[in-house]
């Protein structure tokens, strides 16, 4: 006899006979219904319903699958996050970790809001729609806190663009197709909603061929008094569903994101990818913010993973209430959606509000004015029970606590040390110039202008430091973008996104410290004080101990850095299962750093400003070639990855920030991928000016030029200030040395024996064509 029993109702709802099912049947039910729940979880559900003395409906079971998915309840990651990363107290924290976005103090009356998320699985199947809805989702996360979005960030990771089609595993799309689709999706959605895309990264590695990663971040600004919680207000309040209609797109998005992809994913999971509509989103943002500013709302939360089933439960649970929902009042895109489909659909552009009955009319007026649908679909109740009705029939009744507080695991993990020995014996390259040419045109260093200029990075008119900096027409990559969020204040926010998966692949712990270091360096480079960060942790299958070991190491490193530096993690997201049967992604802890710029008029850019200035290297250069671009060019694994020491970093950051206050610094940039060579090359390109650099005698040339040691900056200063600056920094125990002077048309390195020089023009051409030449025109 079938375990699926159609209930005697005038519409399609099934009772699932789990009470009489054995383990094998339970696991088959989970598979048949696409629940992605394991047998233990199914048994827990069976126990719950056994106590209730009845079987669950399909609506109930589907709802549990959403709520208990990795994506929604962080069941494999929470243990580690709590242990290492959460709970960093900082005076600027207002509302961190607990909501969809972190809320941090900006000034006395304002807060900024930060969110960062992945949209990996959908983008691997449908890059355009996947990335577009990623932008849509992250905007809602910021808006639902009551904040106006002011900037978008998009770190992207793909397989090598020149990978031959023949070598792609079955079902995997070519990285060039994926990249073009993802960039177009971000462009068409971000540009249309009118929020500038100001920072990001594009990183290429074989590890992303089977699973590209699409991370999206958003920053918003709000008056502190307008910050609203993602929880129901009071019993008796009405649930008002606003925005787009509900359809069959995006069904099982979260359960899809909580499993590995395989060659059938394209066929089986297309329906899990949502469809975005920025022209519903744009007025939805206005309407939500207007209603919130008028104090007409008691709670607001966006509909993301799990759709209605998650938003109602989470809003009610965090307020200590229950809820009643009438599914037939949800406006639909098409007829004949089954009740469970309405309940779990992840259709985009929707927001849930709770409203006191006396304010309903006013709220509906505002949404009508903006032509955004808004409908009462339920109410908040005193008890902690969630009841769902469809055409007056009860189809769902469960304790909110049971549904929404999903399982939590400490799965077995294994830490693997993969870092090799320090090389020492690798001979210096015979042809340094050829190595330099390869480095500056390496896809992970080369210009990303083709993507950056497709994103509107200036809409809203507040972008002070743009993603591309330098002489118009010659611009180079900046370290951070700077936004001026308020019309009547010079205070600004610096924004950057960083991680170097070449390092984390070899050593997730030290690689993560290096990512944190780079984030801080980029913020300090533009003269901002690192203030908070969000993380998007992209890893493989957590049920495999080695992957979870990598995750553990990365989170442990983040906690160490963040705690020691006093920079709180305010929001984030974990994306597991970035894995296929034949590959998994390198550990990728993407960080989005936010810095406070005391006065945007004092921001610093990275392009060389004039001839005859002095270049000072700040920080120590060690032999750290592990995961370096140099090691890739030479085709040798070269041991030790660059690592950071938060105490040293803190001291150097403070030194540099006080230097900015005391002296006029013409330009500042940090050596990262490609080392001092690539750093100087980028500074020369942006300024259209060359420089003459002395390579120290005591160091191997390749170490000086290409090592990627952390906690370093190069600053351009006036000749007359240089002595004082050295003294100023030395007094603060920040290592410095004068390495050269600006001028001429070449980047020239003088060693004891030879002069290595390349014209800035050639560097510029190599740098600009590095990726474009792989894109087939």
């Amino acid at each position, binding site marked *: 006899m079938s375990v699926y029993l159609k209930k005697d109702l005038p519409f399609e709802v099934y009772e699932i006979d789990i009470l009489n099912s054995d383990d094998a049947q339970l696991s088959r039910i989970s598979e048949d219904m696409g629940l992605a729940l394991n047998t233990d979880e199914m048994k827990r559900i069976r126990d719950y319903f056994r106590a209730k003395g009845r079987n669950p409906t399909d609506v109930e079971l589907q709802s549990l699958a959403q709520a208990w998915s990795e994506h929604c309840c962080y069941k494999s990651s929470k243990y580690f996050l709590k242990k290492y990363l959460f709970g960093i107290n900082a005076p600027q924290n207002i509302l961190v970790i607990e909501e969809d976005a972190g809320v941090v103090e900006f000034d006395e009356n304002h807060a900024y809001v930060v969110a960062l998320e992945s949209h990996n699985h959908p983008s691997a199947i449908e890059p355009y729609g996947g990335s577009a809805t990623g932008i849509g989702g992250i905007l809602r996360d910021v808006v639902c806190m009551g904040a106006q979005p002011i900037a978008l960030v998009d770190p992207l990771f793909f397989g090598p663009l020149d990978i031959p089609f023949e070598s792609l595993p079955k079902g995997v799309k070519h990285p060039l197709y994926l990249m073009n689709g993802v960039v177009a999706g971000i*462009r068409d959605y971000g*540009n*249309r*909603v*009118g929020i500038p895309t100001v920072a990001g990264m594009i990183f290429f590695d074989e590890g992303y061929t089977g699973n590209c990663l699409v991370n999206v971040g958003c920053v918003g600004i709000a008056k502190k008094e307008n910050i609203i919680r993602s929880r129901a207000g009071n019993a008796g309040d009405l649930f008002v569903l606003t925005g787009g209609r509900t359809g069959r797109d995006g069904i099982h998005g979260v359960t899809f994101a909580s499993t590995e992809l395989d060659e059938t994913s394209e066929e089986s999971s297309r329906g899990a990818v949502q469809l975005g509509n*920025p*022209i*519903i989103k*744009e*007025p939805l943002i206005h309407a939500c913010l207007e209603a919130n500013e008028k104090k007409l709302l008691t709670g607001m939360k966006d509909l993301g993973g799990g759709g209605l089933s998650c938003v109602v439960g989470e809003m009610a649970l965090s307020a200590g209430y229950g809820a009643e929902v009438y599914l037939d009042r949800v406006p639909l895109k098409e007829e004949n959606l089954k009740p469970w489909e309405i309940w779990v659909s992840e259709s985009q552009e929707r927001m849930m509000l709770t409203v006191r009955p006396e304010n309903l009319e006013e709220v509906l*007026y505002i949404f*009508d*004015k*903006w*032509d955004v649908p808004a409908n009462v679909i339920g109410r908040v109740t005193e008890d902690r029970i969630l009841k769902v009705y469809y055409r007056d029939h009860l189809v769902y009744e469960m304790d909110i606590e049971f549904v929404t507080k999903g399982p939590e695991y400490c799965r077995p993990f294994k830490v693997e040390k993969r870092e090799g020995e320090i090389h020492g014996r690798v001979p210096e390259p015979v042809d340094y110039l050829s190595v330099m040419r390869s480095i500056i045109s390496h896809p992970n260093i080369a210009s990303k202008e083709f993507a*950056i*200029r*497709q*994103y*509107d*990075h*200036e*809409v*809203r*008119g*507040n*972008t*002070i*430091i*743009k993603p591309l*900096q*330098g*002489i*118009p*027409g010659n*611009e180079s990559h900046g370290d951070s973008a700077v936004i*001026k969020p308020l*019309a009547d204040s010079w205070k600004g926010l610096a924004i950057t996104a960083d991680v170097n998966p070449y390092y984390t692949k070899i050593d997730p712990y030290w690689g993560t410290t290096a990512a944190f270091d780079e984030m801080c360096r980029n913020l300090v480079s533009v003269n901002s004080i690192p203030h908070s960060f969000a993380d998007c942790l992209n890893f493989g299958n957590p049920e495999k101990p080695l992957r979870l070991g990598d995750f553990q190491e990365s989170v442990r490193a983040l906690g160490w850095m963040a705690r020691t530096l006093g920079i709180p993690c305010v929001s984030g997201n974990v994306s597991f299962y970035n894995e296929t049967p034949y590959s998994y992604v390198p550990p990728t802890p993407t960080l989005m750093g936010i810095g406070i710029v005391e006065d*945007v*008029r004092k*921001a*610093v*850019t990275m*392009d060389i*400003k004039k001839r005859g200035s002095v270049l000072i290297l700040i920080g120590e250069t060690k032999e750290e070639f592990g995961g370096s671009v140099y090691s890739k060019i030479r085709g040798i694994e070269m041991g030790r990855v660059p690592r950071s020491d938060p105490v040293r970093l803190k001291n150097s950051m403070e030194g540099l920030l006080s230097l900015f206050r005391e002296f006029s610094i013409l*330009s500042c940039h940090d050596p990262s991928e490609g080392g001092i060579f690539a750093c100087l090359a980028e500074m020369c390109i942006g300024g259209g000016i060359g420089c003459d650099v002395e390579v120290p005698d005591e160091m191997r040339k390749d170490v000086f030029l290409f090592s990627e040691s952390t906690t370093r900056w190069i600053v351009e200063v006036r000749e007359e200030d240089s002595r004082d600056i050295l003294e100023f920094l030395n007094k603060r125990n920040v290592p410095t040395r004068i390495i050269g002077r600006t001028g001429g048309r070449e980047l020239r390195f003088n060693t004891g024996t030879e002069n290595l020089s390349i014209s800035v023009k050639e560097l510029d051409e190599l740098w600009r064509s590095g990726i474009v030449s792989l894109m087939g025109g």
Partner: protein
Amino acid sequence: MELNEIRVAVLRIEGTNCEDETVHAFKNLGVEAEAVHLKQFYSDTIREEEKRNIRDYTAIVFPGGFSAGDYIRAGAIFSARIKSVLRKSLEEFIENGYPVLGICNGFQVLVELGALPAFDKTISDRPEMALGINNSGRFECRPTFLRVESRNTAFTGSIDRDIVMFPSAHAEGRVIFPDGREEEWLERLKENGQIVFRYVDPGGRYSGYPWNPNGSIYNIAGICNPDGNVLGLMPHPERSFHPYTHCSWTRGRKETGDGELFFRSILEYMMKL
């Protein structure tokens, strides 16, 4: 007109997205400006206190963005709505000499509407030109430099610089004239003094891509009507209002943003009305 009599309406519908910064550009100069939803002019569902009449204003701006998504043709839907609810009063508004400005998507709206180039009538029955897809085939967000070709307009009178930097950000900005009549159209525009801004490189020379970001004929970035009180331009003056939003300001900064001079010109024109 006194400064305190100036009222600027920045029109919005779903998908317009530059209204806030455009309103601020005017407000920074001490005049009243507000973003007004087109519905506020005609819809019965709007409450009394939010209803507006075009006669309440002394200047109208069509801001940048993607009105109604621009899925059909940039500006097509917004202009169709204007035609159906506001055409007559907008015509009067223009004929009375009040300034009407279209920035980026707003330029596209004015062209679709027939308010530019408006050779023979205030609002022509059919569009007389078009803004086509950029030659690069892509959205282009980049600094653009413009030579001010005419100061005899409601928008440029106080720009005391030959070259201004207003950033561009659009996918459809290439000025196209009817096939075979390009020369004739150019001549008419020149004769009437309707060419207001042309793309140049940072050195002030008329150049090709990327300085002409879309491939516009004759490097045209902005044109006005024969009377000079309706202007459309692709680049965004509101984005270089402050010296600190200029590109590369860290390499040398102007005292006043180029965009401020543009908006100041509009106010000075109105004060003479």
